[in-house]
């Protein structure tokens, strides 16, 4: 705060009055009059105004002026005669400073440059001139009113290939020629998935890269790699801004759908900042921590974002759609709060006694909270806002969904309902849909479960394609990482993808050097062989054989490997099959989709979405127009 003082010099003036007639002799000078009193000092007080000030929403300076009536050298409130404001013209600089963590980050910069380079390559190759008056704009730039990001957790390329064949074979085809819905998208590229500190990544680091354009460490959510995992004190100053948050600032509707817990790493990276992916509720955190747990951040997304971007307080209205599992993280550790299909004696885990589902309902009077299929079915397409928690933990595998006691909607149903609700906003929407259990079925070593969930995911993507206009909706389909899942041997065309290898021209299964048949699908590591026949819950492998691995070769001669409960052989014994480090695919449709065309850093996906929807620019324009309204 600067204080400027200006003194005025006060003078006293005498006036002489004369009569008509000859001028007399000038008399002698009279005695000097008495000096007048000193005049008052005039003071000017200059005060910096923060963003969010009622007079200068984008910040600025307040200039107060007045006379120092009490001569104390300071301009008191009662002495202010006038106030003037010099307001910042827009919030461009403010936004830049608030995005500093991202903008200064080398991952962010490199991924952003990749988009620029691709744009130049495209323009050069196609000779497409930029529209007049918009020299900086590339093809499709800013044209996406809506963005839908589909993430198949663990849906590596071998998973897509096997699911494609399985879906084709389920339709009576040979299978190999078939295409999953998103394989018909016009553009595809590859995504390099490694984390800053890991060759083989995890979902937290990869989804943070996709959502905020910055690669980060394993296990952390929405923060850059300067953080120390598990150390709350390192979060401040390292928070990143996500595409979902930018969409919110741009006045779009926002939604998240996941078949995993809604607090799990992938969905969490759209809205939360956490030093540890496991801090899903307060009971998971170190005692006395000052950080906020992930569930709390979801329910309080709106006020927390307003704190970070006060200039947008009038625009930010919270996430309109959140569907997934994970009720346990939102309920107090008290059996009185158990839901109808609670799997535990005490369903809730929260030790702060907060019922976040109730707090959400209190905050959003027009919102609808649901827990089961019946509640979901009753949600009208015109609903203003919805929050659905359909399971205590993860939602069911698609193959096992019929076993849920209270009933759960499918990923297609959730996606369709989400689009119905979000599309009511004329400014458009951002939606993230995660198929979270492809990953879990692979971890359990069960290809059947992983492929069935991939097929269900492809159905949800088709529903989104059918419900949106490709001229104004960017749809991206990708994975956070792959799995050590292989398609091997030399099976003949049309051989059942879940079956044993039957060579070209043969009718009986091929035999390995050990004299035993082998399957086309397999895992490099994990729990290994289980033959659980018609069991549709992939996780049954963890309670079979006391959870111990059973790796190596088995005699599969009399085993039906195409059943839901068959778990493929594995080589290296581990308590759970692992992620893999190879690239995953990006499939793109809609404005800006052509940017998915090559081998990209995973962080480039954020920049692709930002290019197509011009999220940063739209957010800044939104702030300027709000400032104009407030003026």
């Amino acid at each position, binding site marked *: 705060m600067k204080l400027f003082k200006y003194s005025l010099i006060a003078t006293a003036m005498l006036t002489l009055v004369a009569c008509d007639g000859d001028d007399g002799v000038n008399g002698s000078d009279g005695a000097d009059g008495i000096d007048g009193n000193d005049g008052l000092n005039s003071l000017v007080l200059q005060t910096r105004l923060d963003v969010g000030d009622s007079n200068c929403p984008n910040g600025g300076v307040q200039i107060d002026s007045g006379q120092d009536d009490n001569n104390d050298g300071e301009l008191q409130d009662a002495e202010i005669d006038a106030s003037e404001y010099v307001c910042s013209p827009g919030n461009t600089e403010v936004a830049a400073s608030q995005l500093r963590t991202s903008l200064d980050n080398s991952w962010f910069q490199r991924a952003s440059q990749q988009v620029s380079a691709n744009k130049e390559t495209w323009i050069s190759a196609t000779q497409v001139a930029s529209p007049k008056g918009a020299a900086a704009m590339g093809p499709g730039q800013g044209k996406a009113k809506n963005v839908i990001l589909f993430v198949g957790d663990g849906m590596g390329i071998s998973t897509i290939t096997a699911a494609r064949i399985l879906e084709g074979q389920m339709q009576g085809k040979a299978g190999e020629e078939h295409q999953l819905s998103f394989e018909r998208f016009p553009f595809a590229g590859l995504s390099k998935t490694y984390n800053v500190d890991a060759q*083989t990544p*995890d*979902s937290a680091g990869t989804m943070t890269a996709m959502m905020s354009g910055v690669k980060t460490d*394993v*296990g952390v959510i929405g923060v850059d790699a300067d953080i120390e*995992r598990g150390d709350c004190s390192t979060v401040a100053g390292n928070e990143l801004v996500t595409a979902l948050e930018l969409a919110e600032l741009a006045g779009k509707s926002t939604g998240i759908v996941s078949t995993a817990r809604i607090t799990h*790493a992938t969905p969490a990276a759209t809205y939360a900042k956490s030093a540890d*992916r*496991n801090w899903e509720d307060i009971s*998971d955190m170190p005692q006395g921590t000052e950080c906020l747990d992930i569930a709390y951040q979801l329910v309080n997304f709106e006020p927390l974002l307003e704190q970070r971007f006060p200039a947008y307080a009038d625009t930010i209205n919270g996430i309109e759609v959140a569907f997934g599992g994970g009720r346990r993280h939102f309920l107090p550790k008290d059996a009185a709060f158990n839901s109808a*299909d*609670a*799997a*535990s*004696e005490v369903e809730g885990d929260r030790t702060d006694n907060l019922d976040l589902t109730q707090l959400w309902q209190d905050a959003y009077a027009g919102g609808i909270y649901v827990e089961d299929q019946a509640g979901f079915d009753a949600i009208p397409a015109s609903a203003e806002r919805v929050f659905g928690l359909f399971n205590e*933990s*993860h939602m069911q595998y698609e193959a096992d969904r019929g*076993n849920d*006691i209270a009933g759960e909607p499918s990923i297609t149903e959730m996606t369709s309902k989400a689009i119905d609700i979000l599309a009511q906003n004329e400014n458009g929407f951002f939606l993230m849909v995660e198929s979270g*259990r492809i*990953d*879990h079925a*692979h*971890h*359990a070593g069960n290809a059947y479960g992983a492929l069935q969930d991939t097929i269900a995911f492809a159905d949800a993507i088709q529903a989104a394609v059918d419900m949106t206009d490709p001229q104004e909706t960017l749809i991206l389909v990708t994975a956070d990482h792959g799995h050590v899942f292989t398609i091997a041997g030399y099976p003949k065309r049309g051989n059942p993808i879940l079956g044993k290898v039957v060579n070209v021209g043969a009718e009986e299964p091929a035999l390995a050097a050990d004299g035993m048949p082998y399957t086309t699908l397999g895992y490099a590591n994990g729990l290994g062989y289980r*033959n*659980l*026949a*018609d*069991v549709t*819950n992939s*996780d*049954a492998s*963890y*309670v*079979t054989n*006391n*959870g*111990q*691995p059973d790796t190596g070769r088995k005699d599969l001669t009399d085993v039906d490997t195409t059943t839901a*409960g068959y778990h493929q052989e594995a080589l290296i*014994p*581990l*308590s*759970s*099959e*692992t*992620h893999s480090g190879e690239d995953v695919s990006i499939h793109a449709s809609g404005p800006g989709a052509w940017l998915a065309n090559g081998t990209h850093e995973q962080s480039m996906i954020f920049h692709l979405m930002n290019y197509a929807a011009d999220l940063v620019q739209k957010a800044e324009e939104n702030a300027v127009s709000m400032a104009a309204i407030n003026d």
Partner: protein
Amino acid sequence: MKLFILIMGWYSGLLLAACPDMDTLQATYEITLSDKKNSTSQLVLSRHGQWVAHQYPKQKITETWLRTAHGRLKKTRYFEHFHRAIEYAPGETIQGKRPLSWAMRYQLVEPALLAQLTKVHSETLECDTVETYQGVVDGEQVELSWMAGSHLVKYFIKQQGARQIRWKLVDVEYDQAKVTRYKRELESYQTTDFADIGDDHTDPFLTDMVHQGFIEHGSDGVYHAPHNH
């Protein structure tokens, strides 16, 4: 007449009050395997309503089962040394494998076994009845002492040739406060969902799960349903 009913009711109440709550107890078993080489282990069975725990002191592992309102069994495995636990989904019957029977968890013996044996002795105690059963099941000589009131195995002997397995109840406590304390202590452990074991490869507990120790096959009950060993 009314007075008589009241007095009878009061007297029955006294009798009932004198007997402990059989649903809340801790029973300690000594399990001895005599074969070419002998071994002894211990299992502590704890019950609290719809919750049962099998504690293996030697391995420092406890497995618990909760019977949910819908009759499904939810298993949790506690690793005492690490103060960590793995939670499993409410179980479904796994075809071709041992079913997760509540009776096996609650009383360590399938009712089907009693039906196959012959009752050779019965003794009525103040709060319980002790029955002795004998017979041959699947070629093995079996003897079982069964506390019918408390649904506890008093002893169990299974013999085939030189190989003998013997379960012996060495202590039983009906201390509700103690069981509650024990249950609360377990519930204070950090838990991980079974489906999340593969998610976090930086957690040394999870990555080393294979080596944390597992319960020996067959030690979680004296006898399963026929053909389900």
